[in-house]
Every structure is written in structure tokens, then in C-alpha cells.
């Protein structure tokens, strides 16, 4: 098998065909984050090119550059050998590059045909019937029975996605970018999509499939590029994949994506969390066995905000003194699982109990009363009131309790201020004073405040979703250390994160979520990074080869 270094690819490939798109040494930086660094990518007609990588590996940035959303800081793009500048998404469309985003951009109340021609250069009077004839043909080709006059809101998600694809092809796109196209689809719909991709391939369309689902990528792709931390760390050519077989290819890809080496039990060497302050991990798992059960989920199933199944039949027990790390690629139901435990999301079946108290579907305050604490990943969106003061945010969840209010009615402002001040002191939150508006604090300080607020309620079960997201190294270490010491004081902690390193750093057990299922739980000592990585990408059924 040949793994080519990211640089120098451009010159060595493409003997059989001329690439329709050639991205050369693309770099893009956002603030302090280098999202792409010298990435080169070639797209050939009649080929499906999968771009794989973890969250934050730079896949979407790269595609946004190609689709005209961003402009690269360095590097060039060539179409059919001629250098071009892609100024905007509509410019990209004009140059034959069509994008189907993860979140659809159709207007639900318009018909299929109206959506398809929306934004096209039309005359004042719409020639709907001419377009309709062409569209009818395409709908048939794509296995859609709906009439072009059907309003999009009546279509299923899978059908809408096909309409999105038709929409860009209708404008003559010869390059199709698909951003996580299967994330909203049922398995049957996924198969349907793949059939369409094969068809497009036969017609000479170049397809880019951005995904973190390994199995799917290998099923339809001819060529696979792997990104990691903004760099291209490998490209598998069609011949390579055919020669080495699926199992070996998968193993190789997992190694490339996570940077671990086969058989290694430690997080990768360049992990930032490994260095610095050095947490004394007491995570042995022995102490946990003796604790009493603080969290119990039995057969919990729940829907996400769009009504799709997000949590599937999850059962687990968590004892005092234990940290359960939940690993998984974003959007596999971890957030919803956290919300279920916090009482913030209804379950459609199953039960949840906290410290022996049943709280299923009883709401946030019942869960909190039973001892659930929840630090959300969406700090400003739901965790806080950005325009309110630090003090007001400090008591968001406890305002109707003593001493912050008397009889649950009259506010005691001095008590609120004093409490906020004590949280600030204890967690070293940097703020001018308690009356400062929350928006003026940095992300790390907001996170400290939210964590402090939660801990002040002395929760028995603490759920943290991505608690170190966007924090500097020192603050991240502080947060993890705090979680560990909570567990050591006899609390149960659920740590949801897409960063494997931090999960391994403090967890006693590591669970992996894939497509709403808790596919496996391992004691910390038995964790193999590649196994976890593989489970995150492909789920349980396909993991046996690695177990």
C-alpha cells in the first residue's frame, strides 16, 4: 500500500485522466486555528473521492473553500487545468461545482420545481413548463415519484436530499460536493443515495464525499483522502484499496485519522493534554466497584429536535466515584443522551434514575432535585443569558432556592452577589466584578463559571458535554482536574467529548456512541485507541476484526 505525503502529490498523480479540479497547497487560518495547511486534492471525472477526518480535521473548511464560501490564505485552485478564483457560492455553481450541505437549503413551502430554479438566472416571467419537462426526467432518473409541483415539506429527508442533488445538477454541475450526506438518512435511504452516486459516476460527474463514517466511505469511494489537524496525512488510490482489501485499509485509515499506532494503548504522542500540569489520575476502576449506583439508564430511547431517533436503547449504570467517558463523533446522540440525564429531553421509552430516584420525563427541576447536574456544550446558546450579569447567570438554575430567594418569591440580591463572588474566587473566574455582562468574559471564564454554578448545587451525577471545547490548555486541565476530584469525592461523572485524549486522561470507563447506540464500554485499562477509533467511525458490527 502506498501512502503519499501530503506535499508533492499533485505532480505524481493523474496519469490516466486530467483532474477536473485540482486544489494545490491550500492553507486557511481562522484566528489561532490553522484549519487547513498545505492541503492538495485532485478530483477526477467519474470518481467518488471520500475526504475523511475527525471533527475539526479541516474537511468542511476545505470544501467551503472549493464551494466559494471561504477564500484560501494560500494555494491555488485549477479547473480543467486552468487556474481560477472562486469568489462566492454562486460563482462556484457557475464554474460547475455544486454543493449539497449537511443542513438542507430547500424552502419547505415551495414546490420542487420552484426550489430547483430558485436563484437561477431567469427572466422576469418564469418558464416553469420548460423546466418542468427536464425536471420530470431527472426526478424519474433519481427514483423520485413526487411531482415537480409537490411542496418540499411533504418530502422525506432522503427525498429532499435528492432534490438538493438534482438542484445542483440541473445547473450543469460536473463536480458534486456532499457534506456528511448520510447523517440524516435511514439505512435504506443511504443505499439509495449510493446507487445515485454510482450512476453519477458513470455519467462522469466527480463526486466528493465528506464523511467520518469509514464503512460508508469505503463502500462507494474510489479514492480516499485523510485529513488530520488540518493536514492531509494520506491518500489511498483506487489500486491501493483494491490490492489490500477492506480490513487492512480500514485499519490503516483509523491509524491515519487518529494518529495512533496499531496496538498502542496510550494517546498519541503529540496530544496536548499529555503534557503540561500533569494530572494525577486515580482512575484505577477499583474504587468504583465499591460505590453505590448513582445513575441508571434502562433501555432509553429518545428523539432529537428534528424528531429523528438520536438515542437508541441505551442501558448503563454509573457508580459513585466513577467517571464514564462517552466518546463518539459529533452528532451520534451524545448530546441527546446528556440532555436525557439532565431531564431536558423526553425519552420515548426506557427509564432514568438518579441516586435511586426515578426521574424519567419529569423535567429538569425534578432531575436537578434528584441530584443531576448538566454542563451544556452550548454555553451561550442555552447555558447562560449572554446579556445578563455574571451574578444573574450564577444563579440561573437555583434562583428559587434559598438563600437566593425568600419563599421562592423575593430575590435576595446581596446573597446572589455574594454567591457569585464566591464562585468567582473559588474557580478563579476572570471578571471585573459580578455585575459585568457575561458576554464580556472569555470562553474559558464562562466555562469555569458554568462549571462552578453546577458544582455549587452539589450534584450526585454530573454530566459535562465537551467541557474543554475552545479552552486554552491550562483552563482545560483545570476543568478536567475538577471533574476528577468530583469523582474522587464520591460523585458520578459523565464526560461527553469528541476528544479521545481527554476522555482517556480522566475516565474510569470509556463508552463509545455510534448512531445513537452505546456500542461498547471498556474499563480504562483495556482501552485500545484503535478499537475506540474504529467503533466511533463504524459502530459495533464492524469492530470485531479489531476486538
Amino acid at each position, binding site marked *: 500500500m502506498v501512502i503519499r505525503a501530503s506535499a508533492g502529490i499533485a505532480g505524481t498523480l493523474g496519469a490516466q485522466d486530467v483532474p477536473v479540479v485540482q486544489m494545490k497547497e491550500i492553507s486557511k487560518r481562522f484566528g489561532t486555528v490553522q484549519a487547513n495547511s498545505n492541503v492538495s486534492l485532485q478530483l477526477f471525472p467519474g470518481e467518488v473521492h471520500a475526504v475523511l477526518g475527525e471533527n475539526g480535521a479541516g474537511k468542511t473548511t476545505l470544501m467551503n473553500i472549493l464551494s466559494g464560501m471561504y477564500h484560501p490564505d494560500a494555494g491555488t485552485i485549477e479547473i480543467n487545468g486552468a487556474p481560477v478564483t472562486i469568489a462566492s457560492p454562486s460563482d462556484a455553481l457557475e464554474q460547475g461545482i455544486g454543493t449539497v450541505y449537511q443542513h438542507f437549503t430547500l424552502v419547505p413551502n415551495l414546490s420542487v420545481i420552484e426550489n430547483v430554479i430558485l436563484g437561477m438566472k431567469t427572466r422576469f416571467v418564469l418558464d416553469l413548463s420548460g423546466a418542468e419537462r427536464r425536471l420530470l426526467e431527472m426526478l424519474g432518473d433519481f427514483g423520485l415519484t413526487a411531482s415537480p409541483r409537490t411542496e418540499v415539506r411533504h418530502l422525506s429527508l432522503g427525498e429532499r436530499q435528492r432534490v438538493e442533488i438534482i438542484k445542483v445538477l440541473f445547473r450543469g454541475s460536473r463536480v458534486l460536493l456532499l457534506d456528511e450526506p448520510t447523517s440524516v438518512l435511514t439505512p435504506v435511504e443511504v443505499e439509495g443515495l449510493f446507487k445515485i452516486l454510482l450512476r453519477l459516476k458513470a455519467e462522469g460527474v466527480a463526486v466528493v464525499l465528506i464523511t467520518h463514517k469509514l464503512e460508508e466511505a469505503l463502500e462507494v469511494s474510489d479514492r480516499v483522502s485523510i485529513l488530520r489537524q488540518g493536514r492531509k496525512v494520506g491518500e489511498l488510490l483506487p489500486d491501493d484499496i483494491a490490492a489490500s482489501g477492506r480490513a487492512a485499509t480500514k485499519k490503516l485509515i483509523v491509524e491515519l485519522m487518529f494518529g495512533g499506532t496499531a496496538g498502542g494503548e496510550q494517546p498519541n504522542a503529540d496530544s496536548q493534554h499529555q503534557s503540561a500540569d500533569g494530572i494525577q489520575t486515580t482512575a484505577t476502576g477499583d474504587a468504583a466497584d465499591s460505590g453505590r449506583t448513582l445513575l441508571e439508564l434502562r433501555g432509553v430511547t429518545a428523539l432529537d429536535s428534528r424528531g429523528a431517533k438520536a438515542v437508541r436503547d441505551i442501558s448503563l449504570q454509573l457508580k459513585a466515584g466513577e467517571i464514564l467517558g462517552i466518546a463518539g463523533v459529533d452528532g451520534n446522540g451524545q448530546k441527546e443522551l446528556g440532555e436525557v440525564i439532565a431531564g431536558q429531553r423526553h425519552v420515548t421509552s426506557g427509564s432514568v434514575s438518579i441516586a435511586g430516584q426515578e426521574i424519567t420525563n419529569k423535567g429538569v427541576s425534578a432531575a436537578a432535585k434528584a441530584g443531576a447536574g448538566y454542563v451544556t456544550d452550548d454555553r451561550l446558546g442555552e447555558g447562560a443569558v449572554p446579556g445578563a450579569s455574571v451574578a444573574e447567570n450564577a444563579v440561573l438554575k437555583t434562583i428559587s432556592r434559598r438563600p437566593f430567594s425568600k419563599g421562592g418569591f423575593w430575590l435576595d440580591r446581596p446573597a446572589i452577589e455574594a454567591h457569585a463572588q464566591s464562585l468567582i474566587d473559588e474557580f478563579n473566574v476572570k471578571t471585573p466584578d459580578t455585575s459585568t455582562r457575561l458576554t464580556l*468574559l472569555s470562553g474559558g471564564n464562562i466555562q469555569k463559571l458554568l462549571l462552578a454554578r453546577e458544582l455549587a448545587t452539589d450534584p450526585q451525577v454530573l454530566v459535562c458535554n465537551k467541557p474543554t471545547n475552545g479552552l486554552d490548555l491550562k483552563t482545560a486541565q483545570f476543568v478536567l482536574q475538577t471533574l476528577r476530584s468530583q469523582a474522587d469525592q464520591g460523585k458520578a461523572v459523565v464526560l461527553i467529548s469528541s476528544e479521545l485524549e481527554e476522555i482517556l486522561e480522566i475516565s474510569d470507563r470509556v463508552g463509545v456512541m455510534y448512531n445513537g447506540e452505546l456500542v461498547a464500554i471498556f474499563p480504562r485499562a483495556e482501552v485500545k485507541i484503535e478499537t475506540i477509533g474504529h467503533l466511533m467511525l463504524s459502530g459495533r458490527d464492524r469492530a470485531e476484526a479489531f476486538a
Partner: protein
Amino acid sequence: MNRSVTRERIVPIASSLAAIVAAFLVGGIFLELRGKDALNAYQILFQRGLGNSDGLTETLKQMAPVLIVSGGLLIALKAGIWNIGVDGQFLIGALMAGAVGANLAGDVPQAVMIICGAVAGFAGGLAWAIVPAALAVRFGLNEIITTLMMNYVAVNVTSWLVKGPFKDPDRVAPETKQIPYELRLPFIPGTEVHIGLIIGLVVVVLVAILFRSTVPGYMLTVLGRNKRAAIHAGMPVGLLTVLALLLSGGFAGLAGANDVMGVQGVFKANWDPGYGFTAFALVYLARLNSLAIIPFAFFFSFLLIGGASMPRRADVPTYYIQILEGLMLIFFACSVYFERRLMAAWNRRRSEGSEEHAAPAPIESPAVVVGEV
């Protein structure tokens, strides 16, 4: 820090005042273009509204309903709920007070009649908000639409009731029975201003206390500023929505009762002072700050009173006042825009001084834009 706190207090006031001044200037240009003497018109406006004791009395009387409606509306707006239906709630409250008050007048002591009328007015306005509140909480229907529609229903229902069941049979005109002059709301001693003004001030102060010192007030503010945070914190969002809509409807009804029992003495068909628009303009210019309602209510009342005499003395139609109010809102939106840019620039400068970057500015709901600071 102190300096920036002062800034945060002064700038919003300044931008409201700037909007008012700009409205007068641009309104004046319109007058001049139409060949009127703008300076003279404004002189008459101020003279009539403030210049003599008659004008002042009328302005203070006018303040009562403006204060009560605005106080109620503030509760809803602060919770992020757009009660467009205050005019309908006002009418229902007014008719209820007219029917109850006039029927009790003479049979019971004046105080009892007034209290019963007030309760009937409050209950009427509150009842008119029940349907939108229930629809919003149970089915998630947008209260802007439902409360607006309820206005039209209210206009027609009150008009039918006052022509039918509640009509004074001794009169030809469709109206309720008269409340005798001597039984209407008593005057504040030493003035000719009835006690509605005091009721209005009490309402505004109560609303201020609600938001400053109580848990429901705090929760309503959170709801208005970030509904998802309210849900996340386990607050009873449905109950709070109902509370805000019903209270705001109730106060609109109470304002109706005030006008019937204090000024009109009767509920007449086709009578509709339409304070809703004025109240919206007022509450936003007051930046959703409860106590700031009081000076603004005085200002808007004086506009209403002064404007009423402009046709005769300056040949400027009464609805010029509505044009002024509209201009104020437009300029207010502009000044909020500039204010935010100014604040953002200050914050940038401040965070450059410190080591860490400030969190990115969140996208806030429209109600937050004018939130109390």
C-alpha cells in the same frame, strides 16, 4: 470599570433622546414642505400640552391609561412575548367596567363600585388574553398573530354587546348606562386630575418591583433574553408565558376601566382610543426599563393632548402626532444600531487591553436589543 458602567447607563438614554429629537426635526421638515410654520406648530403643541394648568391637567389625566397599558405591555415584551392585542384587551376591559360600574352606580358606595369596575376591567382584559396564551403554550402558535386577530374580534364583540345586551335602553345612541359624574373616579385633592394617575404610577412601580426583586420577574427576564436558557435551567416556560400574557392583558383591561370610570363615564360604540401603538413606541423608547416608563408616559401624553389642539390653532391634523411617534420608532431603530457599534468598539478596545479575548457577541433576540441595561 465605573466609567464603563456609567457609559452603559447613559448611552441608552442618550440614544432614545436622540431619536425623539430627530423625529421632531424631520417631522418639522415635512411641515415646512407642506407650507406650515413648523416652529409655530411646535410652540402650540408645547403650550397646549404643558404651558398652562389646563393643559397640564389634561396631560396628567391622559397619563393614567398610558401608564397602565405600558406597564402591562412591558411585562410581556420583557418576557419576549409580543402582545399586539392590548387594544382589544383594553376595549373588553372598558366595556366590562362600563357595564358593571354603571349598573352598580347608586346602589352601592362609590368605592365599592370603583373597585368592582376595576376588577371587572382587569378580568375582562385578562380573559381576552387567555385564548392566545393557551394557543401559544399548548400548540406553539405565534402570539403576534393570535393577539392581533383577537383585536378585530374585540372591536366587533364590544360593538355588538353595546348595541345589544349592554345598551342603555333609555338612549338612542348605542352606549352603556352613564356613570353619574359625581360617582366617577375622585380627584386627587387640590387638583382636577382623577386618581387614575396614582393607579397608573402604582402599576408601574409594581411592575418595577416585579422585575427588580422577585423570582417570577427574574424568570420572565431570562425567558425574554434567552428562552433556551430558561428551558435549560428548568424554568416553567409555559406558565411564565401565560403569566406574562394574562398580566399584560389584565392591565390593558384595567386601563380601559380607568378611561370609562374616570373620563368617559360610559362605553360608547366605535370608541377606540388605540393606545396600543403609543404604548409600543413608549416601552421601546424606555428601553424596557420599568421606571423610565413614567417620564416617557408624561411625554407621550403631552403629545396626545397638545396634538389634539394643533388642527384648530396651527392647521396641522391630529394624526401628525402618530407620524411623530412613527418617526421616533424609526430613528430609535437607527440609534440602537449606532449604539451597538459604539459599544462593540468600546468592548474591543477594552479586551485588547486584557490578555484574553472576549467571547464572541451572541446573536440576540429583538427584545434583547433594547434590553434594560
